[in-house]
Every structure is written in structure tokens, then in C-alpha cells.
């Protein structure tokens, strides 16, 4: 299908914003396997922004419902303001982007094997590449 890698492979500094520990760990494993560096896992908005301020982050994956009642949409807006492109990782994808750097949404449950292709494509699209690069697992907001 259309989930083959349509963009050159590269190593990105990734931030995972996800309050479910097991899901966060699995995402970390699945992306580290492809050479990405996971700068940290955050479970709420404050810890996400702390990590974003403390590290160079190329790209963030962000759940929509976070710990302590926090909203992943708020986290995505703040990350976007810091110039970090974001994709949501959610069972209920929001209908629209809250910031221009929120590229799209990967719907849970997702194919683990397609995650890397979605992240790379979203990163390239955030940088101005063609939306045609998006694999089927990635729903774009633009």
C-alpha cells in the first residue's frame, strides 16, 4: 500500500507526548529502531514544554488527551509556537489543526510498521514538501 517510505530516511530528534506509558514506550522503540533520537517522553503540557525547551526537538508526536486533564491540542499549539512540527497520535483525531505546524493525525490504533513513514513524511510536509508524500496512515490537516 501507500505506506512505503516515500521520503529519504533520516534521523530526527523526536519528542513523544503521551500519557499511556506502554504506548509511549512502544512508539519510542518503533522510532528508535529507525535511527531517531527520542529526546524524551512527556505526559502533560508542562513536561512537554520543559523537554522542548531543554533539547533540540525536530518533531513531536502528541496524544490528544494527556495526564492531569491536559489537552494535547494545547501542547501542540505551544510546540508549534516554538517552531516544532507536530502530529497528533490519537484515538479521536481532532477535526482540524490548532496551529499551522500541526501537520496531521495518526489514528490509534496504528500500524507500528507504518509509524516511521508517517513521521518522516509529516516532517517533510511541515517543511514545505508535497502533501502527496503522506502515507495512508497519516491524515493531513492541510
Amino acid at each position, binding site marked *: 500500500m501507500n505506506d512505503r517510505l516515500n521520503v529519504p530516511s533520516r534521523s530526527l530528534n523526536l519528542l513523544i507526548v503521551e500519557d499511556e506509558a506502554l504506548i509511549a514506550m512502544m512508539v519510542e522503540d518503533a522510532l528508535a529502531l529507525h535511527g531517531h533520537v527520542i529526546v524524551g517522553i512527556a505526559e502533560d503540557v508542562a513536561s512537554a514544554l520543559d523537554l522542548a525547551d531543554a533539547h533540540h526537538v525536530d518533531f513531536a508526536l502528541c496524544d490528544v488527551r494527556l495526564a492531569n486533564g491536559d489537552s494535547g491540542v494545547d501542547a501542540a499549539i505551544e510546540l508549534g509556537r516554538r517552531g516544532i512540527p507536530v502530529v497528533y497520535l490519537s484515538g479521536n483525531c481532532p477535526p482540524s489543526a490548532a496551529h499551522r505546524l500541526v501537520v496531521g493525525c495518526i*489514528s490509534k490504533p496504528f500500524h*507500528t510498521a507504518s509509524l516511521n513513514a508517517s513521521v518522516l513524511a509529516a516532517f517533510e510536509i511541515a517543511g514545505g514538501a508535497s502533501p502527496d508524500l503522506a502515507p495512508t496512515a497519516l491524515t493531513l490537516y492541510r
Partner: protein
Amino acid sequence: MEEHAPSQHAIIPVEGPSVDPDLPRLHLKIMAEAAERLLAADDSARMVDELFALIRSELRLDVFFNYRLEQDRLVLEAHAGLTEEQAAAGAELALGQAVCGCAARERRRYHVTGVQASDDPLVAFVKQVGLDAYACTPLVYGGELIGTLGFGRRWADRFSDDEISLLHTLCHYVALAKHRLQLEQDLRAGIEQRERLLNELNHRVRNALQLAVSMVRLEAASEADRACAAALARVGDRIEVIAAAHRPIYAADDLRTVEVAELLRAVSTGLKTSTVRVIGAPRTTLPIEQGVAFALLIHTILTLGCPSGEPASIEIVGDASTATVDVIVKGLNMQADLLGGRFQRAFLRQLSASAASDAGAVTITLPVRSDER
């Protein structure tokens, strides 16, 4: 309507401008216009405002009070002809308090005449407002009290029987319209609550599936035994297939069936090499309860037949002369037993399907219906 003559009430003949003698002939017209507006109304308070604007000059009305019942009290929802102080003074009534409170408690219409000459405490409020005639009707629908609607005059001490009859009819219309608006509001609230519940359930189910996948994948990653790790990985793959097989269902309008092409596309997501082409059966569907079995069957064939990610394609071929559709998986390595495994046989049995293999291809014949047939 009860003709309520307060104690110490002096009957005062109508003086000043008389009621339009042609008024009864206008009643049908007023009722028709009122019914039209009330049927189209979408706001309870504004609806009564507009009704008052419609009938005010024809019936020479000075004031209206529309109370809404809230638990055991009446709350002024809409009014006209009052100063802010007067409206504030009548903002709430207990059941039994003042004329409308009595009308609500007793569910009986009141026509109070000669108010200005009365010392009855019951009419003290409307007297203070300057009214000399006041008619209040309880708004009741299906035995349920909704509120009250009262109209008053300062210039005359009573309404004629025809006018009272018209006002009563209009109040009955208002009660019907308010009941309809309340039903609509309840219905919308019920739908919104169910939507929220459905969204929450959907989120929980998806998250639970994602957690299951994550758990198995993490166990597989930490397992030293290769065979065991491979088995766990296969379990992870199959849970992902089950999850993927549900995805087209979320987007489907018809919850009884799932499109085979959509199902195949969802299942093939994540498999690097498979493509799906549909030939001659653009809307072939399966009963929804067979979707997961079909998805797992195709996934098993693809993973066994393309162990290293060799290119494969899937075609759905409809034949108008038969009641079956062929799903043909091409480009397979036939060294493995693609159809004889326990899972495959169980899935084929569940689907009431047959299967055959030949020259790098497996054909599954499904007894499905196509919308084109």
C-alpha cells in the same frame, strides 16, 4: 374561565375607548398568523414577545407576563409593558402567590376585573403595575404545567367574552409551541450526550487496542528467545490487523456491512508491498461480523506468501453471472502452505468461502453481495 371578582370589588363599566366592534371578525386572522409564527418559533421567550407584538394593538393590550415553571416557583421568562422595577418586583412568584401563582397552582384560568378598585391582596401586584383588567391562563400540556401567560389592560376594567376566548386559544397554542421547543431541546441534549458517550467509548476501545499492541510489542522486544519473540510479533501483527479491520467500520454509513476493498486497503496498510485493485465489483461488501475473519485470512496469506516483503497485489473480481466474488492475491511465494493452516481453514469456514492456489496466486471465492448485482 373563572370570573374572579376580588372582595370589595366594585364593578366598573367599561369607559374610555371601546373595544373594536369588528374584533371578533379579526380573531380567525389573528389565530392563523399566531399559529404560523408559533409553529416556526425556535426561542421560547422571543416567541411570546412576537405573539404579543402581533396581538397588542388588535386587542388593545398594555402588558403581558409569561412565567416559566421551575420546580415549585414561577420565573418571569418574558414580559412587555412593564418598567424595569415592575419586572424585577414580579421576577418570581410562588405557586399561589398573586393571580398567576393562583392560576398555576389551581391550573385554572383567571379573569380579574376592576383591579384598580380592589383591595384584594391577590391583585395587589397587578394593581401596582396599573392594570385594571387582567387575564391569566396556566400553560398546560398533557397534564403537565409549563408556566402561565397573562395579559392586562390599563384602559379598561375587563375583557369581553370573545377576547377572553381568543386569549385562551392563543395561550393553548403557546403551550403547544413551548412543549415542542422543550421536546426539541431535550432531544438535542439527548443526542449530544449520546455523541459524547459514543466518542468516549470509541476513544477507550481504540486506546485499549493500542495498549494491547504496545504490550505485546514490548514483550516481543524484550524476549531473548527468538521463536518466542517471533510468535509475540505475530500476535502484535494480528491485533493490528483486527484494529485495522475495524477502521472502515467507523467510517461506514451502513453498520451492517463493510466494503471489501476498504477492508483490504486498511489491512494492507503497514505491509510494504501489497496493492489493491478492484475489477468489476466496485462495491462488494461483507457482513460486518465477517470483516475481521476476512482481514486476518488475507493478512495470513500475505505474510506467509511474502515472507521478505515481495511485491504482491490483490484483485477483487466480480462476475455478474455468479453470486460470488473472487479475491485474488498475486505475486505469492508458494513454498509455504498458504491455505492449509488451522487459522486459514477456520477463517474460510467462518466466511463460507472456498480457496484455490495456482502459479503464485491464491483465489478466495466469497459468497458476498455486490451492489452492482
